[in-house]
């Protein structure tokens, strides 16, 4: 559209500049502070070179948290995808009380993670909570949900799955609802059964939605920290610490601002690289054609 070049910035700039203004200072600040020894007893923007980064490399607790995130984010997102897609298929069509189920399945994502974490804490309470109570009725010994590493991770993952499967459900259901009808008619005419129709028609058509839903969820899940803070406080020991929570511990609780800055930047670089690789792998796994720039060219 010629003659419009002067106008196009008018659309983009307000939003772009606002975000830049809000984000650039924090980023620059973090970069600068990561080269300083700023901490609670020495709140100075001095310069200590790469000392913080050397420390990051040797910080086994940080790296353990990152590895744990692979399980916490990767594992829960995979489960969320499977359940969310499954639920979306179940209530897509031909189901009684469809709207009731849809509303129900959406509700958890609307709830506040920290608030629900507090509720879940009551539920997993080792002596007063209903989970152990019911297990006892089944003759199973009480599980030490918050004092043993395995159960604590399981509890955390349960909460994550409960909270965010609806997000997956929403994106997948919206995707299903916008599918064209013709391929399904064709499959029906060909006499394909439900199973074949799913693998030959539904799944390939849903591949692009699947990939973007999984990536969005991975991005959001990787920030996991609120829930950890309330539910387990990273414990027992450091068994449920996520990178986000560990950053909180070092940066906010212990106020090692300089060190937390270098942790943050290391983490961000790791995340960008990992997510880029994961996105490419997912696109290949789902056989999605490489996406070209979405903005149509004129």
């Amino acid at each position, binding site marked *: *559209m*010629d*003659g419009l070049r002067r106008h196009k910035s008018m659309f983009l700039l307000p939003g772009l500049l606002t975000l830049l203004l809000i984000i650039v200072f924090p980023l620059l600040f973090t970069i600068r502070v990561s080269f300083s020894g700023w901490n609670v007893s020495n709140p100075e923007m001095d310069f200590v070179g790469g000392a913080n980064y050397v420390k990051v490399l040797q910080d086994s607790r940080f790296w353990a948290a990152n590895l744990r995130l692979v399980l916490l984010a990767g594992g829960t997102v995979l489960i969320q995808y499977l359940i969310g897609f499954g639920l979306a298929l179940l209530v897509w069509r031909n189901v009684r009380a469809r709207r009731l189920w849809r509303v129900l399945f959406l509700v958890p994502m609307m709830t506040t993670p920290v608030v629900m974490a507090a509720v879940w804490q009551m539920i997993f309470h080792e002596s007063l909570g209903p989970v152990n109570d019911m297990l006892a009725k089944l003759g199973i010994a009480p599980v030490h949900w918050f004092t043993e590493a395995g159960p604590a991770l399981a509890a955390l993952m349960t909460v994550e799955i409960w909270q965010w499967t609806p997000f997956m459900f929403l994106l997948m259901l919206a995707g299903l609802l916008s599918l064209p009808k013709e391929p399904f008619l064709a499959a029906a005419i060909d006499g394909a059964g439900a199973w074949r129709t799913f693998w030959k028609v539904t799944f390939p058509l849903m591949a692009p939605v699947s990939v973007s839903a999984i990536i969005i969820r991975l991005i959001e899940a990787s920030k996991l920290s609120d829930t950890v803070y309330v539910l387990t406080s990273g414990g027992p020991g450091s068994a449920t610490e996520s990178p986000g929570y560990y950053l909180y511990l070092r940066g906010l609780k212990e106020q090692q601002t300089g060190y937390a800055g270098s942790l943050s930047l290391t983490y961000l670089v790791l995340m960008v690289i990992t997510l880029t690789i994961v996105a490419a792998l997912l696109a290949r796994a789902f056989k999605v054609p490489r996406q070209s720039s979405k903005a149509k060219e*004129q």
Partner: protein
Amino acid sequence: MTLDATDLSLTVDGVDHLKDVTASFQPGRLHTVIGRTLAGKSTLLRVLAGLQRVDSGSLTRHGADFLTTPVWRRDTAMVYQQFINYPHLTVFDNVAFPLKRAGVARDEIRRRVQESLARVGLTEFRRRRPSQLSGGQQQRVALARALVRGAGILLLDEPFANLDYKLREQLREEFKTLFSDQGDAVVIYTTTEPAEAMMLGDVVLVMHEGRIIQTGPPGEVYDRPATTTVARIINDPPMNIFTGRIAGGRIAVDDLQVTRVPAHLADLPDGTYQFGLRAPDIALASAGLQAEVTFVEISGSETFVHLALSGTGFVVQIDGVHDIALGDRVSMRLRPERLFAFDHSGALVRSPSSGPGSPEGR
């Protein structure tokens, strides 16, 4: 009052969308632009509307530069091939939209919209939304909106191409009447259909691969297509073009003598030419040239028979529905008095409507 394009060119990714397009569009006349899909017709309209930039060339309106005039000040209305209306507005408000933007008084808007809707026969649908109308009705809304403000330039980009055959004919008829009130507007109408271009246009522009390859009144373009390409584009089915030799008062394809040399070609020197013959100008006969049937299309009251004659394909149009099987061998006869002659480069040498000895001027 004219709209003049000079040497407009646009290349995208190495493909010429427009190449040295020069044309003068006159007020009060309907220009049809005919060309195949992707010939550059839509691009030309988008450039005229200001929706598309060009690499080079100039565009003037009333003699003043028009390229730098922004879209919204070009006093141009456009109807798209896709039925484009404002989905959120009623039919009435859709048609009123350009008038409101132009600051026309309320009563005046009411009057003109109602008049406009009456003209396209949509008065009773004025409170509906476009999505509640059929395709034909949606396109009438678009037409009404384009006509209502009496824009100085009216662009129609294959407006009826997405409609079914019958509706297309009907709207085409109506369009002719609708347009008769448009006064001094420059009207440009693109189409892929020869009949439409010839029937509607005061002036026909033939486009091919981004170029305008012939301009003229419909009769002239029809009778004297400047090149074999034009001859193919402006005829449906495309004109049969075959290479042959004139020798000794006979025309031969390869070694096969196909017909005598007709009077209007009599003074042409012997040699190789490309000949053109329209599909209705070939007849199936009981005796004559033996050809093999390769394809048969039956369309309404006509039958199109595709024939192969010693490696050259012909399309024959015959009246009525005929039961002809693929692979049949049939006899065909050319009507020599209808032959066009082109030189080896494809330029017209002689047409049936030019008498002997009158070389084709350009």
